[in-house]
């Protein structure tokens, strides 16, 4: 029975994808979206049933569907496991994807590629399921690549949009952004592959159980190498510095995609990998500390860029980046269950935030500049409530989910005695509160700065708003399940407890974080509630420009990597490809063509000539036979 549920949870999205793919080339059909959503919902029910079952019995369900690769000592099955960690991810992924599917029925209403969109979206969910459910690293890698491909397809969904300059649109065009995301992930995946090779080379298996059982017997430097290589893979997928630029550019995709893939699920795959491989990262403290430090840095770094950005979706993308940094900080410090808890909580409120942003975009006719919005709360009250709620959660205000999860991470940083990280995380919490409410106030409060003649804001469809409500409810109440969640997942993950010392200060710590958060919100209120007052001097200052241009890192990559690479490619194209490779190939073709042209004259159509040629051949053969006979 449980095995069947595993298969249903895994394959319902695939069926949905294939079903939608059948209509990919036909005009918009609403029932495609409805059936896809129903199938996804089936998957969610299966996952949730599994979760309840595992919660009550405490027993993981593992199935081996079939052997995938078996040769010599290499044995890789298509094996899937639903244990405490993967079932958490499964439930979260299938819930959010179901909601996003329903949302997309409304959001993609006017898109002519409606059916194709659902096919891609469900294919993504299937890949993600493979990723989280696989019981070995090879299956995880397949899912990993699968979500990469689907992400590429969905970012570039509006591939027909032309390229623009970086000043006009920082992410140039959907197809450019899709390629950037894909290539960045390829770079990181190389690291991941190296990690897998190191593990396989030394352990002889890629099954999680075998690998983790073999860890005590391995040299420290091998473990460090494997952990670092796997983390490089995680860095690409979770967009950690220096491979972070693709995530904000990925906002070129349709907004439901941003909500599902680039906020709630795919980008957390890197965190999931670290959590999954926790026995490996637990024994490599240097690598783990590096992860924590990098995570903290990214949290701060991304938040700083979000402070000045004007693009609605990019601000949320930066906050995703920042929250991923938090998760890595927790995982790096050994608090794996806290990282997982923040991952799930973040998925709820970040998806809600993005879907709200989608409503705003829908209302504003795809306008994304928050400087050109304002006063929308009058016409879009439900969306305003959703986004305000999600922003409060993101800022970490009691008693919403974000408060419990983020606070736990900050406490962990204090508990580990890494005070520099702690300070940075606290400051980042304040910045987070500021930029999220800057965005909320600029969008919904104050004067209306859009063109009244061209834009008539209107609320989204009702069913869409209703579909978003589970996310809002979960964003509010998820914090209440913190203790239950802890006991649930720590039966698989290592337990993490605060020391007495930290317990002693816990009220003070919470007060400091809340103070920063409320301070951030207050600052945003003072500055932006009335409306937008632009400060020319500030906007022209060096730091503002640095931040709004993302520290010039995209430009730096263009100058240091893309352009030299293009130059070298040009050289190789002209020098090697055209002059050597192409010329050789052309030469062969030319030779064949010419010889054919010459030999064509043999084909006179006259049988007598053919007979003569036949005789020539026979005589040549006879001479050859005679000569060889004489020599032999």
């Amino acid at each position, binding site marked *: 029975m449980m095995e069947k549920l595993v298969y249903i949870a895994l394959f319902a999205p695939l069926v949905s994808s294939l079903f939608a793919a059948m209509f990919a080339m036909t005009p918009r059909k609403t029932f495609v979206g409805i059936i896809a959503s129903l199938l996804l919902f089936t998957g969610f029910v299966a996952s949730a049933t599994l979760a309840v079952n595992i919660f009550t019995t405490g027993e993981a369900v593992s199935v081996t569907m079939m052997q995938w690769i078996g040769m010599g000592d290499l044995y890789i099955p298509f094996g899937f496991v639903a244990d405490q960690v993967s079932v958490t991810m499964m439930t979260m992924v299938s819930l959010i994807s179901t909601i996003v599917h329903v949302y997309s029925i409304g959001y993609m209403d006017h898109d002519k590629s409606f059916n194709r969109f659902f096919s891609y979206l469900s294919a993504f969910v299937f890949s993600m399921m493979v990723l989280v459910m696989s019981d070995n690293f090879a299956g995880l890698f397949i899912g990993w690549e699968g979500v990469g491909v689907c992400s590429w397809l969905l970012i570039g969904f509006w591939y027909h949009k032309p390229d623009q300059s970086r000043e006009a649109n920082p992410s140039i065009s959907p197809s450019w952004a899709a390629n950037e995301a894909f290539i960045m992930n390829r770079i990181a995946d190389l690291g991941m592959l190296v990690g897998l090779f190191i593990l396989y080379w030394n352990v002889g298996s890629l099954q999680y159980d075998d690998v983790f059982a073999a860890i005590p017997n391995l040299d420290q430097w091998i473990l460090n190498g494997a952990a670092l290589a796997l983390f490089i893979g995680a860095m690409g997928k979770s967009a950690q510095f220096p491979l972070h630029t693709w995530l904000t550019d990925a906002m070129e995709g349709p907004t439901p995609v941003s909500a599902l893939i680039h906020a709630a699920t795919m980008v957390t795959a890197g965190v999931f990998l670290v959590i999954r491989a926790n026995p490996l990262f637990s024994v490599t403290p240097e690598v783990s500390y590096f992860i924590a430090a990098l995570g903290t840095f990214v949290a701060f770094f991304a938040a700083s860029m979000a402070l000045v950005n004007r693009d609605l979706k990019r601000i949320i993308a930066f906050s995703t980046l920042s929250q991923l940094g938090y998760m890595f900080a927790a995982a790096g410090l050994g608090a794996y269950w806290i990282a997982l808890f923040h991952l799930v909580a973040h998925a709820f409120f970040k998806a809600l935030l993005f879907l709200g942003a989608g409503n705003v975009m829908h209302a504003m006719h795809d306008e994304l500049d928050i400087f050109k919005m304002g006063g929308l709360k009058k016409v879009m009250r439900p969306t305003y409530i959703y986004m305000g709620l999600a922003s409060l959660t993101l800022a970490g205000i009691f008693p919403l989910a974000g408060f419990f999860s983020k606070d736990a991470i900050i406490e962990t940083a204090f508990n580990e005695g890494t005070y520099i990280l702690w300070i940075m995380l606290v400051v980042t919490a304040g910045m987070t509160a500021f930029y999220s409410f800057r965005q909320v106030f600029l969008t919904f409060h104050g004067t209306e700065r859009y063109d009244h003649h061209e834009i008539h804001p209107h609320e989204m469809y009702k069913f869409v708003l209703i579909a978003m409500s589970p996310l809002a409810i979960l964003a509010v109440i998820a914090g209440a399940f913190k203790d239950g969640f802890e006991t649930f997942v720590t039966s698989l993950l290592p337990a993490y407890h605060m020391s007495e010392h930290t317990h002693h200060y816990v009220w003070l710590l919470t007060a400091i974080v809340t103070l920063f958060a409320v301070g951030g919100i207050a600052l945003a209120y003072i500055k932006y509630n009335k409306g937008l007052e632009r400060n020319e001097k500030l906007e022209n200052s060096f730091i503002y420009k640095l931040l709004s241009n993302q520290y010039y890192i995209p430009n730096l990559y263009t100058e240091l990597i893309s352009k030299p690479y293009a130059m070298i490619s040009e050289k190789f194209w002209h020098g090697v490809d055209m002059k050597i490779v192409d010329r050789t190939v052309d030469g062969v073709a030319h030779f064949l063509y010419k010889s054919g042209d010459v030999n064509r004259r043999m084909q*006179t*159509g*006259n049988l*007598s000539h053919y007979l003569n040629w036949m005789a020539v051949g026979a005589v040549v053969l006879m001479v050859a036979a005679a000569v060889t006979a004489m020599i032999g």
Partner: protein
Amino acid sequence: MIGLSHYLIVSALLFSIGLIGVLRRRNLLMLFFATEVMLNAVNIAFAAISHFYNDLTGQMFAFFVIAIAASEVAVGLGILIVLYKKHGSLDLDDLATMKG
């Protein structure tokens, strides 16, 4: 005494005469004659080998060659007649319609 080589050489000469005929003739009927010459030359070789090695296999092959020659002539002549009806000529130069 006359040995195997004598017969084989005669056979080779006759075969070459047939080959010359095949090479120089353009009239299909004459080409058929030339092929008959070649077939007969081969038959001599078969019979001679059969005789000198005291083995009947050579003669058997000669029989089958004759059978094949007979059917070839039957079908071939039928085709010649059709060709002649169609083109009014049996000259290969006139029949060269498949120029590449």
